[in-house]
């Protein structure tokens, strides 16, 4: 039997197939489902992260003939991921909790658990690949999840197995059918953030900070010249580039271009005001040798956004500044900037600010 691998299993098709493939390859598989937050009554129908999903993961492991455990990581997850999620909104940013979950929960806390059971390897159902110790995009570009993995400890790469990363989703489902994992084979995709029921993140903020949270308090819609053009019911309900929920009556489509928590203002403007010519990112983590100033690379500023050509103009302790070859729309503080060289993931950071491509024209 090959070495032991701890497989993080959500009860979904990807991680189930990951476990099944590793069993097939002869690994000593131990399945683990992380319990990350309290499962209230309100989320019974969710395809992921509910008790049903834990049961599904357990059934898959039973089918595979491997042990399965439920790991309670609630308090660490609450601190590392949910608290941060709430405070990012309070700062007028749009958080990306999946990155922090991968960084802290899956590839730090879970790795500790793997150590505890002598598991040489840690596996997940992510669509990404580790090739010669370097993280790469998943082969299925529609499913690629490398964007969420930039923050992990580089040393963990040598222990990661991502068995579905070189497959397409359709192939993964086919494997599930072939291996008799009917329980999970046709499960719908989970799109939302696991701890945010029905995509209603205001509910999470309210439950953490109370109904009078500042980020949920009414404020003004303003134009970039300062003109007040309406009222909103909480800046946390908005993100850069959003069109929904804005006041009407403008000659061109309007978008959220900035969020100012200090005076609870949501700044709106035409499409041109969304364009950024560069960005600053912080908490930068490298999964390859750090580049030098002047290095050319590609940067992706949102999940599923195309990577844009850029040049490193400044690089200092944990912070990077990039100049973009062509302006990029809706560069959003709090989201990740992930640096690529082709399919190779070089590293990433949290977007701190965008350099505006175009100053607003004041009439």
């Amino acid at each position: 039997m090959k070495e032991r691998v701890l497989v993080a299993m959500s009860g979904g098709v990807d991680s189930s197939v990951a476990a099944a493939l590793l069993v097939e390859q002869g690994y000593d598989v131990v399945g683990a489902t992380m319990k990350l937050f309290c499962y209230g009554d309100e989320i019974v129908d969710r395809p992921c992260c509910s008790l049903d999903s834990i049961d599904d993961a357990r059934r898959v492991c039973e089918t595979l003939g491997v042990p399965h455990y439920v790991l309670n990581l609630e308090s660490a997850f609450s601190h590392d991921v949910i608290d941060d999620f709430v405070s990012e909104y309070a700062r007028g940013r749009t958080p990306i909790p999946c990155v922090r979950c991968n960084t802290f929960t899956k590839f730090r806390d879970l790795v500790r658990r793997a150590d505890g059971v002598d598991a040489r390897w840690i596996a997940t159902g992510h669509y990404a690949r580790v090739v010669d110790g370097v993280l790469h995009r998943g082969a299925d570009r529609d499913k690629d999840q490398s964007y969420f993995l930039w923050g992990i400890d580089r040393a963990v790469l040598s222990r990661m197995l991502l068995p579905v990363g070189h497959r397409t989703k359709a192939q993964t489902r086919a494997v599930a059918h072939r291996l008799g994992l009917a329980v999970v084979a046709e499960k719908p995709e989970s799109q939302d953030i696991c701890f945010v029921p029905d995509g209603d993140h205001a509910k999470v903020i309210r439950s953490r900070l109370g109904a009078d949270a500042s980020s949920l308090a009414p404020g003004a819609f303003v134009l970039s010249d300062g003109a007040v053009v309406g009222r909103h019911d909480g800046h946390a309900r908005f993100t850069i580039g959003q069109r929904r929920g804005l006041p009407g009556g403008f000659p061109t489509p309007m978008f959220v271009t900035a969020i100012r928590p200090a005076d609870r203002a949501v700044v709106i403007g035409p499409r041109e005001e969304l364009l950024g010519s560069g960005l600053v990112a912080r908490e930068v983590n490298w999964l390859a040798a750090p580049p030098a100033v002047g290095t050319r690379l590609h940067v992706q500023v949102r999940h599923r956004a195309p990577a844009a050509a850029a040049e490193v103009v400044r690089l200092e302790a944990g912070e990077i500044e990039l100049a973009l070859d062509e302006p990029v729309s809706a560069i959003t503080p709090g989201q990740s900037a992930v640096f690529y060289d082709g399919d190779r993931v070089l590293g990433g950071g949290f977007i701190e600010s965008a350099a505006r491509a175009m100053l607003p024209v004041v009439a």
Partner: protein
Amino acid sequence: MPAPVYLDHSATTPVRPEVLEAMQPFFGPRFGNPSSIHRWGREARVALDEARERVARCLGAHPDEICFTSGGTESDNLAVLGAWRAGRARGRRAVVTTPIEHKAVLEAAHTAAREGADERLVAMTADGVADAASFDALVRDDVAVASVMWVNNEMGAIQPVPEFAALAHERGAVFHTDAVQAFSKVHIDAAAVPFDILSISGHKIGAPKGVGALFLRRGTAIEPLFHGGSQDRGRRPGTENVAYAVALATAAELALRDHDAEGRRLAALRDRLQQLLVARIPDLVVNARHAPRAPHILNVSVPGTESESLLMALDLQGIACSGGSACQSGTASPSYVLSAIGVPPHLASAAIRMSLGALTDDAAVDRVADVFPRLVAKARGVAAA
């Protein structure tokens, strides 16, 4: 891999072969409904009555004082809520219990509180025993029911049930004891100890899951939880589960027959396991070590470890133990029982309960004494990293 070791008898036990055999006819030829007037009904009724008599004998009770239930949880709910609701009707307004009870008692007490009861929790000593002075102070003449378990399911600590039962009686309160872990481990005699209600469960003593019983002393008023027919004097409507009643009676008799010898055997195994573990892990904490303890439970906390990871590592070595109370999803969380007796959080979340029983022998003790210290050393290495 060496033979697996099952050290979780307080969670559940295998059905004894004699029990399985005794219940078989009631799935086949003797399938009748005990309430029916015909021959099939009579046959079932006789078996049910005999089972009731046999369980009564095991507890020093009268047959009419035995009520069959679906298990420990129903027994505890019927006892606490039934006695609270009956007591409320005659003007009593409080419920007294301890913070180390099984959730079946605690949640029933919380339900009573939502129905208007003043819920009072007895203080615990650091040894793991309910404090007598606190009980005395809380059980005033306004108490409907006081419920104190006989043997705690996590620590094995024996509670002063005889004294508490007598004191509750002086104050006119109904006294209930959850004896799910105590039955066949401590001597129970309804003629000698004045408890009014007592719960037992089948699957802890070699009967199947899904059957239990309540001893209900003559003259003790309870309101039923279920409403329906007049089965079991209306205390527990619903067609009786004859096969399981027979199973419970058979298991109870066998457990009592073996009580003395098995108690000595388990105590010796438990003591040896404890000595070996303490010798090999010098800072190991034996929880409730100063309390009188039932012979089958050893609860230990190892500083610098976490029960969830240790239980996983033990299972991967083929050794089954448990931690604190298990939640629905199967995760372990810090034990509320240990927290309630003042065990600090880092030890309450490191607790491992080893519970011995029919499947435990010297080889099992040796194996655990060999493997557990190695896993602890490993876990501490990881925690320190």
